[in-house]
């Protein structure tokens, strides 16, 4: 390396940039490169943060191995679609735990967007010439793709505790998980657009993640909630996470729950639209300047 007396390398000074104003026309290839770049960055970051992978796995595994083992004696699950026979509690909650991985991943991504908006790297994304909606969607899809290795690692371990869906289910669950991840990511992004400071995010998440998870069909079938009371049942039924869990449950057994698919698609489109129009980089910039 050359000494630091001057930065400019005289040997390289023949290279000249072209500072003339050029119209921007990236074409489809340009959009694809941008999406690929965003996805690659998310995967590189994920690989760098091994503890994130471990914690993403340990949480659902505790539920599957410890919680479900204790509860299987208390809670019987009768024959219900998509299962053709009586199932153990582990088998019942596995799709809910897949959705839980996606939920935590989506909220962590939303958190990282708040952090990036405050700390600056989001500014780099938002000052590139691609449309903001495309950039935010790319980021959500990239985060959804990052969730996939976590899901398959969980399903692999779950196989050894008798959660063994048909092979076709392992394939069919992939698009379902991607769709659910985009939906939950869009919900997280929409919520994050109302958060002025990073510190507020953890509190808000407590009011989102836990109610979403517990007021759904992830841990107990909806008919059990119906027995508990009509209001609780109505809330669970209106919870987008319930339909996400059911979409994953049916697809994991190679079946399509059309109602859940349509609902998840509609909610995804709605929240994507809301998240993109309400995302405002000015929030991070104006912090502390209004007084």
């Amino acid at each position, binding site marked *: 390396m050359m000494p630091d007396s001057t930065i400019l*390398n005289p040997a390289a000074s023949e290279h000249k940039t072209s500072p003339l104003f050029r*119209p921007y026309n990236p*074409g489809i290839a340009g959009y694809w490169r941008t999406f690929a770049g*965003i996805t690659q*960055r998310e995967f590189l970051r994920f690989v760098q943060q091994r503890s994130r992978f471990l914690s993403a796995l340990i949480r659902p595994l505790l539920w599957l191995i410890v919680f479900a083992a204790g509860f299987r004696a208390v809670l019987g699950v009768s024959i219900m679609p998509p299962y053709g026979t009586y199932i153990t509690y582990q088998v019942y909650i596995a799709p809910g735990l897949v959705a839980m991985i996606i939920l935590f991943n989506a909220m962590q991504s939303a958190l990282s967007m708040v952090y990036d908006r405050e700390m600056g790297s989001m500014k780099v994304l938002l000052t590139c010439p691609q449309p903001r909606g495309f950039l935010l969607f790319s980021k959500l899809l990239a985060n959804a793709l990052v969730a996939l290795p976590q899901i398959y690692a969980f399903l692999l371990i779950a196989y050894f505790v008798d959660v063994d869906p048909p092979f076709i289910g392992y394939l069919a669950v992939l698009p379902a998980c991607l769709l659910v991840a985009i939906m939950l990511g869009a919900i997280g992004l929409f919520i994050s657009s109302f958060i002025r400071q990073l510190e507020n995010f953890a509190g808000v998440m407590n009011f989102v993640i836990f109610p979403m998870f517990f007021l759904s069909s992830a841990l107990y079938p909806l008919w059990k909630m119906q027995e508990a009371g009509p209001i609780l049942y109505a809330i669970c039924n209106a919870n987008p996470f319930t339909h996400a869990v059911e979409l994953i449950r049916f697809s994991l057994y190679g079946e399509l729950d059309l109602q859940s698919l349509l609902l998840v698609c509609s909610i995804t489109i709605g929240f994507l639209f809301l998240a993109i129009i309400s995302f405002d980089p000015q929030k991070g910039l104006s912090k502390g300047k209004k007084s």
Partner: protein
Amino acid sequence: MNSRADTLTSECQNTHQVLLNIQGLNFQYGALNALTGLNYQIYSGAFNALLGANGAGKSTLFNLLAGLLKPQQGELHFQGQPIRHLNADYLANLGIVFQQSTLDMDLSVGQNLHYHASLHGLSRKQAKQRIEEELTRLNLLDRIKDPVRTLNGGHKRRVEIARALLHQPAFLMLDEATVGLDLSTRQQLTDYLHQRCQDDGLTVLWTTHLIEEIQPQDPVLILYKGEAKYSGLSAELIQQQGVTELKQLIQQLTRAE
């Protein structure tokens, strides 16, 4: 104090074309006026210095020009063409170095630069070539595989400059890019950018509160509480205002408060 920014004639207008023309720009954070009726010309191929104490409105102007804030009033013309907020053609011709580092510390220099190239739609081959060119010019090619975390402050800034120039923008903006750096590193960075203006015709907007970073031939705007107070070539301003250095002009503004 009356603003003299609008009335000053400058050699700039004879030697450089106006790249970016700002007219009547206003911006408020709630009830706080950050910029008031700002008129400002950024000259093509020059190292344009935006001077002002903390709270003068430099970063607000910077964020407005970067498209991160929306102008509440006023017009911006880039090479004579009016620009809308977040105009893609404008952003594609803009290179930005923010005050806080925006590099990903866990990734390598090369990975950071490839990510930026992809955001501007550059192909892998183009990106590789441009990354090598820029890092070679900045004497950093041998650090391409090193994690950014392992670089010192000056090298990180160089990587950010290389990144901002990857897509060959016509206009490079840097917001207090030398904060936290030692004197010699600051000097190296400003010398490098002056050289790029001269060699490549690059237009630079350099916001700073450090007066010693400005050279006599640089067009300067002095902002004070959101208003343009003085503008012109640095040497010209010193002569016209009857002071020995720019520092005195800022001191006069502060004393008049």
